[in-house]
């Protein structure tokens, strides 16, 4: 059995942004999907609970969940070409959640769609609303996905690698847009990314995942200033920085483990530069190591 996500806990306040960072196979996307109960049927043994505005999402019926998805919790995925339907116009797709969740009549929903395109800064919304996805650039498509996500005024937005397919300046546009929307609508956001730079720019808090577990979490400044887990520290140090000497980078030896065959003890121990003997046999417990709920699961701090 592959343990994609195990024993993960976090809380997110109203209007806050949490970054979930991890490499491929760390379980970050599985975690996002499980919050919305969107895992495929093959994912058995799902345990734990998700409380959203005080309600337990795991106890909801399928019909109740459908009323939450797209209305109170929205999601933006990495590839806008895969999340948009190529056969429908942009207007139809932005209007759809309004018609489904709020029963807005077609004509009014289209009008709202036009307004939403303006809100995500698409030029000439009256014309664009009639376009099909293939007629738009990658940055515009992702803004359409953003417009769909905010159409019903959600309280929480989950963004899974939303800018990975975009160019640098378009990525900057999109991140600025998300931040403005968040302020205007007092949205809480979960940003799932492999990119620490996005966390540094966008997030209040961060959770670092490795092999299905959160190895360190806390306020973003705490973590960048004083990372406690050797994996977090190595990740931060391995990234080239603009304006710094071009000596060698600190590399992390080895590669991330296969989720189907995780090492005993701490999953990071085979790559850890400061491992102790017990790291190979006993799993470290989560403990508080700093202000603002800074926690890490590492024997150096256990």
């Amino acid at each position, binding site marked *: 059995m592959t343990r994609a996500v195990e024993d993960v806990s976090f809380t997110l306040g109203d209007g806050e942004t949490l970054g979930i960072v991890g*490499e*491929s196979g760390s379980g970050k996307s599985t975690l996002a999907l499980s919050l919305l109960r969107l895992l495929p049927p093959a994912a058995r043994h799902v345990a734990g609970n998700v409380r959203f505005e005080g309600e337990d999402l795991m106890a909801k019926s399928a019909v109740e969940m459908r009323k939450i998805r797209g209305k109170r919790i929205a999601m933006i995925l990495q590839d806008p070409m895969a999340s948009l339907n190529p056969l429908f116009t942009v207007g139809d797709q932005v209007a759809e959640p309004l018609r489904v969740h709020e029963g807005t009549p077609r004509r009014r929903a289209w009008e709202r769609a036009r307004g939403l395109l303006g809100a995500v800064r698409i*030029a000439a919304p009256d014309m664009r609303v009639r376009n099909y996805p293939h007629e738009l*650039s990658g*940055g*515009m498509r992702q803004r359409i996905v953003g417009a769909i996500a905010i159409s019903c005024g959600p309280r929480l937005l989950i963004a899974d690698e939303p800018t990975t397919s975009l*160019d*640098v*300046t*378009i*990525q*900057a*546009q999109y991140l*600025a847009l998300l931040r403005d929307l968040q302020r205007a609508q007092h949205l809480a956001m979960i940003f799932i990314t*492999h*990119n*620490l*730079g*996005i966390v*540094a*720019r966008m997030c209040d808090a961060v959770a670092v995942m490795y092999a299905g577990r959160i190895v360190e979490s806390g306020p*973003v*400044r705490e973590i*960048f200033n004083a990372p406690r887990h050797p994996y977090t520290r*190595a*990740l*931060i140090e*391995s*990234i*080239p*920085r*603009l*304006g710094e000497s*071009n000596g*060698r*980078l*600190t*590399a*992390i*030896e080895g*590669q*991330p483990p296969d989720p189907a065959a995780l090492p005993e003890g701490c999953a990071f121990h085979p*790559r850890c530069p400061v491992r102790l003997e017990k790291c190979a046999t006993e799993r470290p417990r989560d403990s508080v190591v700093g202000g603002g709920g800074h926690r890490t699961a590492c024997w150096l701090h256990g």
Partner: protein
Amino acid sequence: MTPLLEARALVKHFPVRRGLLGGAQQMVRAVDDVSFVIEPGATLGLVGESGCGKTTTAKLVLLLERPTAGEIRFDGESLAALDAESLRSYRKSVQAVFQDPYASLNPRMRVGAIIAEPLVTNERLAAAAVGARLRKVLDLVGLPARAAELFPHEFSGGQRQRIAIARALTLSPRLIVLDEPVSALDVSIRAQILNLLKDLQGELGLAYLFIAHDLAAVAHMSHVIAVMYLGRVVETGPARTVASQPRHPYTKALFAAALPSHPDDSRDEIVLAGDVPSPLDPPSGCRFHTRCPQVMPRCSTDEPKLATVDGRDVACHLYDSAEVARVAAPRG
């Protein structure tokens, strides 16, 4: 010292077929009057967004495309003037490593055969000599000798990229074109590969043409940076100068858009409006004027030329008064 490779006023236009009845033939101006120099043992970093022509430039250097105009000189000799034999030796001297090591390695070949293939096709060597070279390059890229017996699927992404680098090294090239060599790799693996590339450069005196969209990685790896926009070089100069004090408004926006490495790292954000225009119909005058935050009336009519400003070359009318030494038009 003669530069290892010199591109002079390179142009590559691709014709676009229109419908049955045609109409005027349109051209994608993928690369339009691009010049640069790569010194032996040094790295030229090429940055820009999709559609700026950086990959077409790489293809021109690799002779995968023929230029519409302009020329490439290698070791002081124009490629257009080379005979078949010399072109073969050029192809051996210039190798490539691509972005996706899952796509660039044949899944049906053993790693040893993949790495030795360039030797087998290009040189008549005895099996023992091929084996010795194979062990040597595996060692150079930090893979064990037994890797030669395995298939690509038995390796992780980072190790596959090492295999691709080993294959590029077998013919002892002098220049390697690196097209987004770490973008497909996990974050914790990227530093390993960038370090390996730097070590190999120091050890073997390799020159690199490094193409990437990760600006910090380009700045880290390169001696010289050239910034491209819609087929033109808008700014070029020593990596540190360009990265720390960009002068062209596009370079400024590009570096400002790069993500910070720390939450307190508050670079001025310059958010550019709009998308990159189509290279089918690039804007008149300066191609960046439609998105430029500092646009002036003449930018839409006069095309700025590269001119030296503060130790680098910039093509921008903002620096017209400071125009001291115009870069001489490349002689044919």
